[in-house]
């Protein structure tokens, strides 16, 4: 059995448990060592509230702060993700929760809002983002119309909604948002035990955000079983991949200095091995660790608010049964029949710790091959245009993969969809140019409007087995107004990760989500000291060059004698002369002229 199916199992278990209770709370922690001294820790916190009490604002486990925001913003279903780092699918295998509980780098938010029309929905959406921004200390309020899209096929409703409701899906991302402790603290406050007890007591900002990959999610959806009353479910997860070596470093000495020579693990079989020459030997044994070491603090017993504290087994560890595991007294260990999973019960207010010594093992927890791997990069160079290249690799030798590819591009990246081209590389390494329509079953494209909305591109693709398909298209970089540049304009502009939704991989109800890495788009950036210099320079040039040239052009150089003659010749001059003469005659004087 694989981790994938295990997680799916958990998921199903979770769903089934929802149906029974009207208001309860469950939490769990799954630990799984991954290759290359990584450790995946999946925290899951679930609670629910009956629809009736939710509507009456009678909250028990459901966080009141969030509930009120949802009611205020007419939001029926909410999904919020905070993610940092990238999931290394090559080493770590498939994503936890099949990628359904993670977002792209930064913050990702999508919600179904009940509203009469698009404008009303958008107004509610802005209300929602503003409120969540305050609640989670994140810049969610920067999700404006240019970052908001309305995906067509990429996201599905998770809960059950009455058919009468008029739901609008809105989706927004902030790829540049840095997720950190200020987001974790409000996240923990939503939990009934608020990080003081239960598995959430392990969550420490220092260790959590030192992780190689980290994702926090909040999902809220109504669930209506066939029989019984509806309830609103909230599902919070924290998934982290910790580097065991790095996490075990003491906090007062975190610098990975070179180890003393005598502690160096060397390959003594090398002929040149000596005191001062060492070929490093990477240890093959599994790393030893304990919860306290890894998380920097211990697990302070079960959360007393959990249903059936005694029967729950909130902490599960996925290592081969042959590995030795030392647990604190009082905890009961249950080994599952699959040979790799063991779970532990927790006692309220009794600290729990779990220690795994370093051990040579023969069996390893098998990791699934990822169903699809995707890579998206910006290619080309220069300030004016560039290209996007998306590579899909289907590792399966037999099955083709169907999926929805969804990307939102900022308006200043102007794609030329007509340049969309595809090439396919088989296992033979030969690259063939083929029409893109061969892979694209359906496409939805909504072009951008400058400064109003971004581009939305959704493609339904099919990748044949054992092949790599490369999609490329060209784009043009817009020139922003100089006030539109952020302070760090020369860093480049973040482009949100693409979302890939694999359909019926494990049944129609549970799609797999993959997200690519976010991109950095360098835009033509002015030298911001330039306007000042330019104004000064142009003013000087105009004053000097234009002034003197204009002067030269309009002025006629004549001698003084010529000037008098010329003045006398012009109509005005003659007229003036006449007037003077006339006046002199009237006054009876003789004007003496030169």
């Amino acid at each position, binding site marked *: 059995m694989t981790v994938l199916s295990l997680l799916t199992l958990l998921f199903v278990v979770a769903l089934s448990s929802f149906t029974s209770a009207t208001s309860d709370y469950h939490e769990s922690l799954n630990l799984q060592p991954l290759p290359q001294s990584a450790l995946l820790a999946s925290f899951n916190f679930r609670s629910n509230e009956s629809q009736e009490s939710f509507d009456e604002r009678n909250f028990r486990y459901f966080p009141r702060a969030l509930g009120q925001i949802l009611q205020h913003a007419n939001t029926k279903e909410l999904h919020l993700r905070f993610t940092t780092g990238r999931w290394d699918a090559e080493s770590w295998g498939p994503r936890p929760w099949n990628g359904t509980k993670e977002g792209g780098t930064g913050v990702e938010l999508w919600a179904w809002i009940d509203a009469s029309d698009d404008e009303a929905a958008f107004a509610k959406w802005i209300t929602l983002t503003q409120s969540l921004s305050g609640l989670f200390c994140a810049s969610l309020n920067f999700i404006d119309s240019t970052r908001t899209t309305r995906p067509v096929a990429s996201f599905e409703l998770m809960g059950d909604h009455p058919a009468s409701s008029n739901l609008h899906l809105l989706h927004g991302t902030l790829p540049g948002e840095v997720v950190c402790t200020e987001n974790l603290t409000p996240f923990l406050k939503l939990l009934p035990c608020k990080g003081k007890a239960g598995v959430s007591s392990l969550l420490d900002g220092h260790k959590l955000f030192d992780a190689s990959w980290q994702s926090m999610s909040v999902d809220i959806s109504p669930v209506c079983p066939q029989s019984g009353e509806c309830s609103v479910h909230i599902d919070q997860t924290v998934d982290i991949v910790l580097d065991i070596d790095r996490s075990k470093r003491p906090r007062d000495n975190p610098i990975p*200095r070179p180890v003393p020579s005598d502690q160096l693990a060397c390959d003594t079989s090398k002929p040149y091995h000596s005191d001062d020459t060492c070929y490093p030997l990477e240890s093959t044994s599994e790393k030893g660790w304990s919860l306290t070491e890894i998380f920097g603090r211990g697990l302070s017993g079960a959360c007393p608010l959990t249903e059936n504290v005694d029967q729950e087994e909130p902490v599960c560890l996925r290592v081969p049964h042959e590995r030795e595991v030392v647990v604190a007294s009082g905890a009961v260990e249950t080994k599952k029949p699959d040979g790799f999973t063991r779970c532990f019960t927790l006692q309220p207010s009794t600290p729990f710790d779990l220690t795994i010594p370093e051990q040579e093992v023969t069996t390893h927890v098998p990791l699934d091959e990822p169903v699809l791997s995707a890579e998206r990069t910006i290619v080309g160079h220069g300030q004016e245009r560039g290209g996007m290249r998306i590579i899909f690799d289907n590792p399966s030798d037999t099955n083709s993969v169907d999926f929805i590819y969804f990307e939102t591009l900022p308006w200043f990246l102007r794609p030329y969809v007509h340049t969309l081209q595809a090439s396919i590389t088989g296992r033979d390494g030969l690259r063939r140019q083929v029409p893109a329509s061969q892979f694209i079953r359906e496409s939805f494209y909504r072009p951008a409007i400058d400064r109003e909305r971004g581009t939305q591109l959704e493609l339904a693709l099919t990748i044949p087995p054992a092949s790599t398909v490369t999609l490329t298209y060209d784009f043009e970089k817009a020139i922003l107004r100089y006030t539109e540049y952020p302070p760090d304009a020369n860093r480049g502009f973040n482009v949100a990760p693409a979302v890939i939704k694999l359909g019926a991989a494990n049944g129609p109800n549970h799609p797999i989500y993959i997200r690519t890495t976010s991109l950095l788009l*360098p835009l033509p950036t002015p030298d911001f000291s330039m306007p000042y210099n330019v104004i000064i320079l142009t003013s000087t040039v105009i004053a000097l060059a234009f002034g003197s040239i204009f002067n030269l052009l309009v002025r006629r*150089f004549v001698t003084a004698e010529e000037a008098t003659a010329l003045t006398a010749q012009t109509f005005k001059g003659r007229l003036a002369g006449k007037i003077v003469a006339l006046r002199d005659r009237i006054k009876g004087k003789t004007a003496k002229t030169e």
Partner: protein
Amino acid sequence: MATPAALPPLPFNPSRVRSYVLRLPLFTRLVLLAILVFWLLEFQTMWSVVQWGSVIPEEAGFGTMYRLNTYPFIHLGFFHALLNVLALTPLLERFEAEHGTLTAVALFIGPLSTLPAGIYILVEKFVLHRNTAVVGSSIWVFLLLGSEAIRTFKSNPYFSLGTTKIPTWTSPLFACALVSILVPNTSFLGHLSAILVGYLLGLGFLKIFVPPEKVLRWIEGKLNLLGRLPHYVSVDQKTYGRYGVLPTTTTGGERGTPMSFLGSSQRLGPTTTAVIRKLRNNPHFLFVHLPHILSFICIVAGVVWLLLLPLNDYSRQTYISENALLPGQVHAYFSGSEQHIFRGYKKELEDVLAGQTEDGQERRNDEFTPAVSDKIQSILKATGLKFATQNYEYTSSGITHQGQNVYSIIQAPRGDATEAIVLVAAWKTVDDELNLNGVTLALTLARYFKRWSLWSKDIIFLFPPDSKAGTQAWIDAYHDMQPAFVQPLPLKSGALQGGLVIEYPFDHRFESLHILHDGVNGQLPNLDLFNTAVSITGGQMGIGTNLQEMWDHDDSYEMRLETIMRGMVKQGFGYATGPHSSFMPYHIDAITLQTKGDGWQDEMALGRTVESLCRSLNNLLEHLHQSFFFYLLMQTNRFVSIGTYLPSAMLIAGNFTIMAITLWLRTGYYPGNQQSPQASKSTKEQAATATDKRDDKQSPAQPDANNIIERQLALPLTLVVGLHLLGLIPLYIFNNISHKYYPTATYTSILANLILPLLLAAILSHGLNPKPQQYLLIKSFSLLILGLFLSTLATLNFSLSFMIGLLCAPLSFVNRINPHTNSCLLRYILATLGLALLNVLSPSVVLLAACKYFGVDVETVLTQAAFGWDVWGVWTQVVVWCVWWPAWVSGCALVGFSLFSS
């Protein structure tokens, strides 16, 4: 009618002031003189003038009556005197001009000083019981202001400010109040009494003091004052007020004509005007000699400008512009047991090298074989890094360059593949030496860097097999711009922010680091990167740095100049000086660090330098953009920025444009076929200038202004454009034939260069029989294109523009020798000399000479150039064959025409 002369209107004109001062009337002058004399008298200490002459109420008595007359002349200091003089002069001058000198004397010596003083003493002494001494001519100022105010009030009673009407006679009161507020130690009472008297004067109550006109006339007549006294204002001369009728004669001469502004400018620069007039009268000089002089001055100035740059006044100390870099602010920990690992890795690589040597062969095989590639990959794999390979194959000049790049990526622990730094360790250095230590160091660093969690950017370690093609193939593929025979990259990261190349090609310890920074086509990395490297190497690690192979730079002028020159030569040729050069076209700043010398720095010191540099680059929040991209370095810590050095190349490029424009003007106004009687027969040694002179002298000295002739453009345009297009042929040939034929091609091109201009000249002169004007137009167009191109190029590749500009400089001065002015023999001799000189400066001959001078093979140079064209995208050849060569051929053809003209 002109305004009265007494009121100098604005704009302020110094010459008018002068004339105004010179025309001051007599009494005013005397008053001013008296004020000056009393002011000077105050400098002596024995006798206090102020004490003697001021009005002191307590001392009022008959014995001190003189004070009532002396006080207006006495002042308390320079500024007091100056301000009062400035205020008094125009008022007094006007009064005197209106009333005559005698009246002014009578009034000012008498009642107009004594009355205000008397009022003051009365009020001060008997009303206020105070004793403040007053002094100064401000009394008169306010007195005259008061009388003027009354006069203004009569003609213009109110001054409207909104709805309120202010009587104009109050204006002196305002002035008085303002002065007493603004200027310290002013006597408000004194001024007030003066204004009072002024009002009385203005209202005519003081007329009784004015001597009768008859008496005045009599005195004037008896004494002949008008004849004896200069600047005397006669009773008759007086103007009877400003608004009286003035004789027109008095103003006409002074005010000048309506064109007087022209007159004044002529007065300011008589010499300039004379020069311009002379030029206008001498168009031969204007159109023929002056441009040559200007062009020559431009060239000389351009060269001299460059020679000035190494001086302290024209160059600057380098500094770190980007604050985020923080060079040398971190401790570098790469030391200790890492050296053991370094040795271990090195042994591994040496084993591979030893393994691939065939038996019995002494010399080990240094090639980057698949075995080496595999070993590097296995080490990277053991370290736990992602790695990939890329094969490439380039063919240039019939030589195939192929290899395999190995690279690996340390993914930033919390990064998102948006930014990356590249560390390059080529298997072979720029000088084709085995870079074993460099590669080993990079491998050790990769393992060491992996442990750090602070990287905000991915770090890419690239191991190309050579320093020429490998990096180029990799960077092209990274941006998906690779040619067909270069594999795409299977593993990628984000936008590259900087690149470092490590070269350590020997086994002993090193002394200093040599920093290479020149990119392809003369592009340079941001100066901040270079400065950071110098700062870290020198400041933090204590390792010396060198630049442009200047091993013992003593910071003297010569050394600085030599460094600049070496940099310019590299920049001008535009070839890649190291693996870092390939990054530059993609706007990625990169440098190469080469270890040099035999000292006590070991590989760990280099490793720490690289670590610190990577940490600095890792700090970057934005792409390097703060500092200069265009600079000339003369020392590791001194540079010249583009604003300072650019004029040098621009001046040289400008010389062609000047010549082209004047030739264009000349062809329009200046028919060349007219015979000039004063054509001189003098000869000059220099063929180039001489040929030109011949042509010049034919022109008439006084051309008719209406002598505008039509330009016949077809032939010159066709020829010049055709020659530029013809340049594509040598460009193609020199970049595409096999390397074996390069020497042959060079010699052929020299021969072709010899024949082609003569052939052109022969065909054109016999077939089309061009007019003299068309010869000038050919030169004009050719130089115009050259000038335009070089000035544009100067902003992109300063050095190339400068070098080509200098080599083309003679083209400004060569011309067809006019067949009518010279004897046949002389013409042939001059033309042949000119052609010989030009041929020495042909692109091919310059290439050969340069190769001889530097002692390199022509074949090597051309192979390298073709490689640069094919792989690096160098476009120096385009400049040579499509800009320089066509201009050169046109110049030669022009000289050649003189051989064939009928």
